[in-house]
């Protein structure tokens, strides 16, 4: 049997077309025109998982077979008229810290290796209401703590653009799966850059929504005041479509905001004339790879050509923000991860004689080294004697960061920065130096600290062909402005038409 039989179908021009290279909005059109069926689409992705997963290792729990069965059911229901949601039958990948009823949710940790959530996260309920199909749970850094997906208990995911490099993190499995066409799109979570940085490393689009726009109910908490779920997609239009599905007030998350629903696809306008873009000069200083800088400068020129007003500005918070981020995120993590005690769920040690032993030994054996490091750091900055010097100070810096952004947004509609100071780095080069790993987040963390939305869009490749990402930052709830700005750039640059990963090692 020809394994590519399901992958390739004839398109109008008579050329071979690969279904899995299409975006979701393209798939939707083909479904509407009856050029494709729901089952064909899901099968094509299931085949790609068979083909690429051994090299990329993006999934913790792949669900190709289950997804194909589900696709057949949905196909039938659509034909009977029982289902008429516009995205019915489109598959999706889900980061493994988002709870899915009946399918294990591991957070890439030994602690939750066999955990099966008794309920669905709100975002998963929303996907199911739209009759999307879960293609699998995706790899990540353990409990979302990391920037390379190397801290997963299970496996190291590889970047399809160069299999010797990391896909970024913590949503590295989600980004690598989208980039290698094993899923058409995916959900990730972003606490300090965990959607945007892997999207940048993998040459795709990642959107971190404003804090409170998307319910966190059922997202395993890392740092509750920073975490947010968002789309990882092939293009900006897909990001807008997925954002439409997952936003909305949820009374089960008290930090979710009660706002009228917006149709983000209406912001897909190819026009940035008059848009005011600020370029914070501190994000282009030393420490930024020269090739990254060069591509960003080209992007800035492109915006000027497209009629935007571009101006250099000052946002002198990057270093403070990174330190503040690690203090706050670790403090919140040390508290949030206190719940893992080996009693009600999760790993339990075999070595105990009393309750205290269960707690200590289960946690010591169940958590990986980075998670323990952050719990220790978080406990330290919250402990008496150091609270004022670190935690309290960091909370004040948080106010400072917000104010500096407020000032910038008085003048500009969006801010433009690199998503990461570098392209994807080689596996193993940073995992033993935590501070160096933390520096990978320098361009992204301040967005989480201030609760702002940010999007990463590919803006070119370096001399080795590795993708470079541009970050656009907007004011709170200005996702429409971000989508408009990113979309216009994308239509002009057409990154996807020029570059694609080749699963090589170099």
């Amino acid at each position, binding site marked *: 049997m020809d394994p590519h039989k399901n992958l390739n179908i004839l398109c109008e021009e008579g050329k071979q077309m690969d279904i899995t290279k299409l975006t979701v909005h393209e798939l939707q059109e083909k479904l509407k025109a009856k050029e494709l069926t729901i089952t064909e689409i899901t099968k094509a992705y299931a085949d790609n998982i068979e083909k690429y997963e051994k090299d990329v290792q993006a999934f913790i729990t792949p669900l190709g077979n289950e997804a194909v069965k589900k696709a057949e059911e949905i196909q039938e229901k659509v034909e009977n008229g029982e289902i008429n949601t516009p995205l019915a039958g489109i598959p999706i990948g889900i980061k493994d810290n988002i709870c899915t009823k009946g399918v294990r949710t591991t957070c890439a940790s030994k602690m939750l290796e*066999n955990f*099966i959530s*008794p*309920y669905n996260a709100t975002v998963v309920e929303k996907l199911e209401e739209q009759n999307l199909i879960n293609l699998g749970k995706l790899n990540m850094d353990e409990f979302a703590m990391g920037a390379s997906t190397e801290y997963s208990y299970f496996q190291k995911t590889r970047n399809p653009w160069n299999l010797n490099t990391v896909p970024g993190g913590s949503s590295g499995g989600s980004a690598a799966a989208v980039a290698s066409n094993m899923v058409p799109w995916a959900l990730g979570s972003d606490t300090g850059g965990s959607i945007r940085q892997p999207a940048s490393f993998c040459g795709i689009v990642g959107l971190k929504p404003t*804090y*409170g726009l998307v319910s966190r109910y059922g997202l395993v908490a890392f740092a509750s*005041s920073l975490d947010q779920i968002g789309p990882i997609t092939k293009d900006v239009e897909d990001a807008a479509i997925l954002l439409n599905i997952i936003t909305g007030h949820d*009374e089960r998350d*008290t*930090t979710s*905001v009660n706002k009228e629903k917006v149709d983000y696809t209406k912001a897909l306008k190819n026009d940035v004339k008059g848009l005011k873009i600020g370029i914070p000069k501190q994000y282009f200083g030393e420490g930024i790879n020269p090739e990254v800088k060069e591509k960003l400068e080209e992007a800035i020129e492109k915006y000027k050509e497209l009629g935007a007003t571009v101006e250099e500005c000052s946002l002198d918070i990057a*270093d*403070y923000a990174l*330190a503040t981020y*690690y203090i706050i995120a670790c403090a919140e993590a*040390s508290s949030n991860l*206190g719940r893992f*005690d*080996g*009693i*009600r*769920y*999760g790993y*339990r040690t075999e070595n*105990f*004689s*009393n*309750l205290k032993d*269960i*707690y*200590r030994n289960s*946690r*010591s054996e169940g*958590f990986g*080294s980075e998670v*323990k*490091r952050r*719990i*220790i*750091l978080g*406990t*330290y900055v919250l*402990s008496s004697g150091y609270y004022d010097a*670190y935690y*309290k*100070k*960091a*909370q*004040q*810096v*948080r*106010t*400072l960061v*917000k*104010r500096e952004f407020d000032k910038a947004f008085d003048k500009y509609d969006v801010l433009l920065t690199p998503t990461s100071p570098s392209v994807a780095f080689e596996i193993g080069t940073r995992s033993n130096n*935590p*501070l160096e790993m933390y520096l990978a987040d320098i361009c992204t963390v301040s967005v*989480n600290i*201030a*609760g702002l939305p940010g999007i990463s869009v590919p803006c070119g490749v370096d001399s080795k062909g590795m993708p470079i990402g541009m970050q656009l930052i907007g004011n709170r709830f200005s996702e429409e402005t971000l989508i408009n700005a990113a979309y216009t750039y994308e239509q002009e640059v057409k990154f996807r038409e020029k570059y694609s990963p080749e699963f090589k090692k170099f």
Partner: protein
Amino acid sequence: MQVSREEILHIAKLSNLNLKEEEIDTYLLHLQDILNFANIVSKAPVEGLDETIGANDNYNVFRKDEVKVFEDNEALLQNAPEKERNMFKIPKVIQ
């Protein structure tokens, strides 16, 4: 700021974590490194600024104090490392 061996052992105890002998030095080194970097917050111009406790403006969210029963006991208990009948099983607490 210098973190001592005693201090890190105390913090590990507060965190309910055991550190193996060979781990202590590595964690000490890393904690030291990160704290040296984090010290930059002490230089931030934050005189007189309030603390921000979350990304949203601070407000309380009230709801009626109503019991909502989670029906699927079986799904809850299937994750228990040890259970007996409808209960989580733990070692004896009162000796």
